[in-house]
């Protein structure tokens, strides 16, 4: 594997090996330019500001929104692109380094409005004022596209959302490592993107059933998927499902590793089967 390159994009560190960093950076710049909630001229910001009930979006926007709606369907609405208002209410209303702790309380809960969004081809229909947040899928989609730009075996990782071309060993939260042979690996949790409002802990993983940051017992959930998108969506859903997360992943054959808030590590059956060394022949 060739040398490792690093740069910053989408508010996190991107690490890659096996390809040209400039080509990968171009991919991330394009996705960030379209989907940032905090760039006023991004397409997402313009869509969220638009007073129209129906509007035509770009093919890239439609692709990401379709992936987000599919993720919502696949997770029974747990991974939801209509929670931007809930995130802002919790305090995530600017680039994360500027969020910080504040003495003011968090705003009211903002439940899901998933049923009000329709996408037909490039035509998006939703009530004006319904703000979308596609960050649940955008970073992993960018990683999946970026890994296609690699010229040899290697990986692309953005804030821990990772896709590989050829086997790569990856360090895990709480210690240990795993070899990602194919596909992607993603970790979702509250270790980094968390803050306080009026002394109450907040984070970016909003439970659409309550419209507030989840009170999941997990600190971080790591999932292996056929792509980084699958891994990321499944990790978020498993995190939000709390104690049911390991079973939910096993029902879908997805390997998952859960780091509890008390430091305990729980691996579901698919993860254990994938990571137990084959017994040596005797």
């Amino acid at each position, binding site marked *: 594997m060739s040398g490792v390159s690093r740069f910053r994009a989408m508010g996190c560190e991107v690490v890659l090996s096996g390809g040209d960093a400039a080509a990968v950076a171009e991919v991330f710049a394009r996705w960030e330019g379209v989907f940032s909630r905090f760039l006023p001229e991004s397409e997402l910001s313009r869509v969220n500001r638009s007073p129209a009930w129906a509007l035509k979006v770009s093919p890239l926007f439609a692709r990401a929104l379709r992936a987000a709606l599919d993720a919502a369907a696949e997770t029974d609405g747990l991974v939801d692109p209509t929670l931007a208002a809930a995130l802002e209410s919790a305090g995530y209303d600017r680039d994360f380094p500027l969020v910080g702790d504040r003495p003011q309380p968090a705003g009211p809960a903002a439940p899901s409005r998933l049923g009000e969004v329709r996408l037909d081809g490039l035509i998006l229909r939703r009530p004006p004022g319904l703000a979308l947040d596609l960050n649940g899928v955008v970073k992993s989609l960018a990683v999946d596209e970026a890994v296609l730009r690699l010229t040899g075996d290697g990986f692309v990782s953005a804030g*821990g959302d990772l896709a590989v071309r050829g086997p*790569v*060993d990856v360090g895990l*939260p709480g210690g240990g490592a795993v*070899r990602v042979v194919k596909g992607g690996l993603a970790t*979702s949790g509250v270790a980094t993107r968390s803050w306080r409002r009026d002394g109450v802990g907040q984070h970016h993983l909003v439970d659409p059933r309550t419209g507030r940051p989840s009170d999941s017992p997990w600190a*971080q959930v790591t999932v292996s998927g056929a792509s980084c998108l699958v891994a990321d969506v499944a990790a978020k859903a498993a995190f939000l499902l709390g104690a049911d997360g390991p079973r939910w992943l096993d029902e879908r054959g997805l390997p998952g590793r859960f780091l509890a808030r008390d430091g305990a590590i729980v691996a579901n059956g698919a993860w254990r089967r994938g990571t137990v060394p084959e017994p040596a022949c005797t």
Partner: protein
Amino acid sequence: MSRKAAEADNRSRVAAARARARGAKVVLGALTTLVFGVAFVGAKSHAPGHARHRARPLAAPSSFELAVRQSAFAAGAIAPPVQPPPVVTSTS
């Protein structure tokens, strides 16, 4: 011309007229059948309301939907590590 000869001449003219009428009917019938047949085949071939083949359901076959669903939400491949990791998965 005698009366008998005149009657025979009239009968032959009527018979000839009837024969011409029968011929015209046959030709008209054949033309009608031909035009109907051509129109029928043309409509079958080109009109959207007339299927050329047996109609198939508009939905994708269930096997295809299953394959797409499985590939859309399928597991990756993992194994025990064999060397120090060059990268760490962290919280996103």
